Structure formats: structure tokens, C-alpha cells
């Protein structure tokens, strides 16, 4: 039978199997224990724990969904519901450099689409895809709150402000 939902983490062949199980290394586990002390309920620790997991593994795989659910006594469906609601949790692997171009109104006026289109063309990517070498992913994102220094490109966690196509090329050359 054809796979109607290739991205569905709950597709039978992707259902978390024990051989792929994940676990926080000790430093992340310590961080997780600290997070738990900061909230009155276990469930409230879900967002920070997912951030921690994404720092660890780069994306929220089905195995991570099960693992985090187990840590916080939540069903995998609850965890996945939260993962899919929020933009920043990657539901598939992203490149080493996640290039997020804001194209909202103020950035658009300062020619953000030029940068976005240039990146897609230069890296030969459809937005959301990753280059075959696993280095770059390009995404169009909504307002990053940096309108006064538009256009802004967020690379992983860092903002690069007042960008243009030439500066983007220079930056790309530094992102090895």
C-alpha cells in the first residue's frame, strides 16, 4: 500500500523501535533535572525539554517523541501535538546550518525575497529541503522581531541583521 503520509512519525515502519532508542547524555540529563525543578508540573517542562532534545539530536525524531513522553509521563501523541504546533521544533533533520530568512513586510521592503530566492537558487534547494552534503537548509520564516535592521537571516540561533545578497554570499562562504 502506498504511504499516504511519508512524514508521519507514526507510520508503522517508523514507529519507535528499541534498537533506535535515544537517551540524554549525563550533562543534558542534569540540565533536564534542573528544568523539572523550575516548574510546578511535569508537563510544563515539555517545551524546554524539547529544546534540550533538539540541541542534542538536531531534530525531534519519533524516538525522541517517545523518549521525552516517557520522561514526562506524557503520551507520544501529546508530545507530537506540541512538536507539530510550534515552528521551531524540526520534524525532520535539518542541515548543519539552518538558514531562516524572514520575509515579512519590513524585511520584504528591504529586499528579503532577493536573499531568499538567491539562496534557493545558489544552493539548488526547494525551501525546507537540505543540501545533499547535509550542510544547508533554507526556510522562509515569519517576523523575527528585527525589523529595524531588516532584512534579517537567522542561522541556527544567531541573527544576521541588515543583510543583502552580497553579505549573504560572504556569510555562506564562512559557514563551512
Amino acid at each position: 500500500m502506498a504511504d499516504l503520509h511519508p512524514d508521519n512519525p507514526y507510520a508503522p515502519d517508523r514507529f519507535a523501535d528499541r534498537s533506535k532508542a535515544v537517551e540524554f547524555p549525563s550533562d543534558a540529563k542534569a540540565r533536564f533535572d534542573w528544568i523539572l525543578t523550575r516548574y510546578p508540573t511535569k508537563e510544563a517542562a515539555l517545551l524546554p525539554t524539547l529544546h534540550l532534545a533538539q540541541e542534542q539530536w538536531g531534530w525531534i525524531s519519533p524516538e525522541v517523541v517517545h523518549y521525552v513522553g516517557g520522561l514526562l509521563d506524557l503520551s507520544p501523541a501529546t508530545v507530537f501535538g506540541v512538536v507539530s504546533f510550534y515552528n521551531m521544533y524540526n520534524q525532520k533533520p535539518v542541515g548543519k546550518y539552518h538558514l531562516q530568512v524572514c520575509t515579512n513586510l519590513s524585511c520584504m521592503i528591504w529586499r528579503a525575497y532577493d536573499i531568499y530566492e538567491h539562496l534557493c537558487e545558489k544552493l539548488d534547494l526547494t525551501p525546507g529541503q537540505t543540501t545533499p552534503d547535509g550542510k544547508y537548509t533554507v526556510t522562509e520564516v515569519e517576523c523575527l522581531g528585527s525589523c529595524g535592521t531588516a532584512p534579517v537571516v537567522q542561522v541556527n540561533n544567531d541573527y544576521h541583521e541588515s543583510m543583502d545578497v552580497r553579505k549573504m554570499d560572504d556569510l555562506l562562504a564562512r559557514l563551512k
Partner: protein
Amino acid sequence: MDPIKVLTANIDKLNSTSIDVYVEGGGYEAARKALQMKPEEIIQVVKDSELRGRGGAGFPTGSKWSFVPKNAPKPTWLLCNADESEPGTFKDRVIMEKDPHLLIEGMIISAFAIGSNPMSYIYIRGEFYYAATVLDKALDEARAKGFLGKGIFGGSFDFDITVARGAGAYICGEETGLIESVEGHRGQPRVKPPFPAVIGVFGGPTVVNNVETIACVPGIIKNGAEWFKGFGTPKNTGPKLYCVSGAVKKPGVYEFPMGVNLKELIYDHCGGILGDRKLKAVIPGGASAPMLLPDEIDLPLNFDAVMKAGSMLGSAGIIVLDESVCIVDAVWRLAKFFAHESCGQCTPCREGTNWMESILDRMERGNGRQQDADLLLDMADNIGGKSLCALGDAAIGPVISSVKKFRDEYLYHVTHKSCLPETRRYRRLDAPVAAH
């Protein structure tokens, strides 16, 4: 009117984020003073100052605090709304990245006034990673000095703050969406009533205040309500951060007494319009605020005056559009934003925002229909006031105002199947789209 430096007094100092620099400039004196006062006295001073919430709605802060019931069965919470996601707004980020202790001090005072339990959260949008690290470091410094933690400032009040990072959802800037998100849920707004002041986060009474609002509090406690009212006009008091972006020569954050003239701000302080082109429209309060035409901008930027002009001050995110901007394209971009950010809970907003986006897009592509402008107004009428939170109402702000004020340009798109010759489109229509 000249710019002032009240909320931004520290941001240009060397090491402005360090606690020593902040204390040297008189920092944390207001918190010490407040802890010697009675909570009711603090609330009264804030009421007297006529401080209104800087997040968008302009609700009087002192009143908000006084709604918290005294003998609630569950603990009271203070949440700081740092989920600054309204397109065109970037003021809170400046405070958090450059002067985090101002926010922390404001939170200590606010928490004491409302009788908060010993923990509170700064809910910051996930993208502000740098600001979150600055805040975390500042919190550590404050803990080390005994300004946070058990018995702060050597007294009997226990108080600590945790930075809670969002993960990319505009709707979490909505009060109850934020509360849901802090609890670890999808950020879908709640039905009101009960209002958060009665039942909010973790079932307890909750006060949610914007970063800039809280940053105003130390000054009020230190210098008094009269000092605060010295800025601006009655009912619209205090220093205010204005974010100007879009087609101006010098975009950025500007601080003025509440009520700087919009025209003066754009032409005198921001250097005028990019390329000395003509002004076409101004969005005065973030993406959700209805547009103003060039002949409507000679007005003071305060809550009441902008409301009277048919728009809203909102978060004071001023987006300037010059004559080269295609209005349909600009509104399409905002509609796309709201369609993306609708949480999906209420049908009118979830479906309506997507429809508006597609209609605007088809007009841009030359496939518009004669009745499309009216169709947009009709749809807006079916979204506005028909959803749980204000996102639907926000989404129709730019659509209704632009159709009413630029109807000719909309019709030109239908009859000529292109944009006005003097305008440009900023994107390629054959540009790659993300695979969903």
C-alpha cells in the same frame, strides 16, 4: 519633540547588561524601596501613574493588578510577556538584550505588589536565543547578590524568575495562549471568562505584563507617579519606545514621551522616506493595525489619538510604506503571516485567514475577479469578533483598511492583471515554494 532616555537610559553604557553597571546607575533601589512598602501602596502608585500596558491593548496596569483576588485558593503568578512577534515590533528585545536588570527589577516589584508565589516566568519567543542567554546570565548575577531567591534583599519575600522559551508561535503572545504554552501545551487561547486574573496559569490568579510595561515600574516607584505623568498627556502617560521600520532612511527604536507626532517621527527623526519617495501609507501599531494615509498621520502617537484616527497604537510597531510598494502585495504578505499563525482552533479565523491569503495572491497573479475587493470585506466581516482571541480581528485590520483606502489599486489589479506601473513586487511569482 526631542527624544528622551528613560527606559533606554542604560543601553549605551559599556557592559550595560552587568549588574554592577546597573547598580552603579541607581539600579535595584526601587526594588528595595518597594519591599518596604505595602503591596496596596505599590498598586496605588502604579494606578496613579496611569501606566497603560505596552503590549498592545493599552489596559491600565494598576487596575489589572488590582483584579487579582486576595484569598485565592491557589498561588498567584506573574508572567512577563516577552513573546515579541508582532511584525514591525522590536522594542522589548532592546530592553532584554541591553538592560536585562531593568526588567528583573520591574518583575520583583510587580510580583511583590500582586503577592506572587516564589516563582515566575519570562516567556520569551524561542527565536530570541541571544536575549534569553543575556537574561539567564543576568538572573544568575541577581541570585548571587541575593536579589533573587530566598528572602530577597535580606527580607522575607522569596522570589525567583525562570526564562521560559517559546518555540515559534505568534499566538503565544496572546495572554491565554501564553499561559497554555507555559503549562506545556499547544498555544491555543482559552475562552474568557474566567479571566487570567482569576484563573490563569496552573489554575492560579495570573498577571501577564509586557516587557516594556514592567520596565516602566522601577521608575514609577523610584520617582513617583507625578514624575511618570510628566511624560505625555493625561491618560496617555510615560516614556514610550517606538519601533520604526519599512521604507524610512533610519529605521530603529526611538524613545519619546508618549504622544510624539507620527509625521515628525517619520520625517524629522527617521530621516524621511527611503529614496526621498512619496509616502503611501503607515501602519502605526504592528501588522494588525489598520493603515493610515499620508494625510492622516499628523497625529500624536498615543493610545487614544490613534484609536480616534481609526487605527490603534498597539505595540507601536510603525511600518512605513512608500509609493513604490504595491498595496496588494504588502497586504498579501501580512495575510500570509496571519494565515500561518492562526492556531486553528476557531473556524472563521483558521479558514478565513487562508482564504484571504489566496484571494490576495490570485489578485497579484492577475487572476483577480471583479468582486474580489468586496469579497475580502465580506470575509473580514465573517472573521471579526467571531473567534476566541484577537488574532482574527488582527488579521482583518490591514485587509479592511487597505480595501477601503486603496480600492482603486485593488481594482487596477483586476482590470489590468498587473500591479500599478509605479509600484514593484518584491518577490518572484515563480519563486520556489516550500513542500508541505
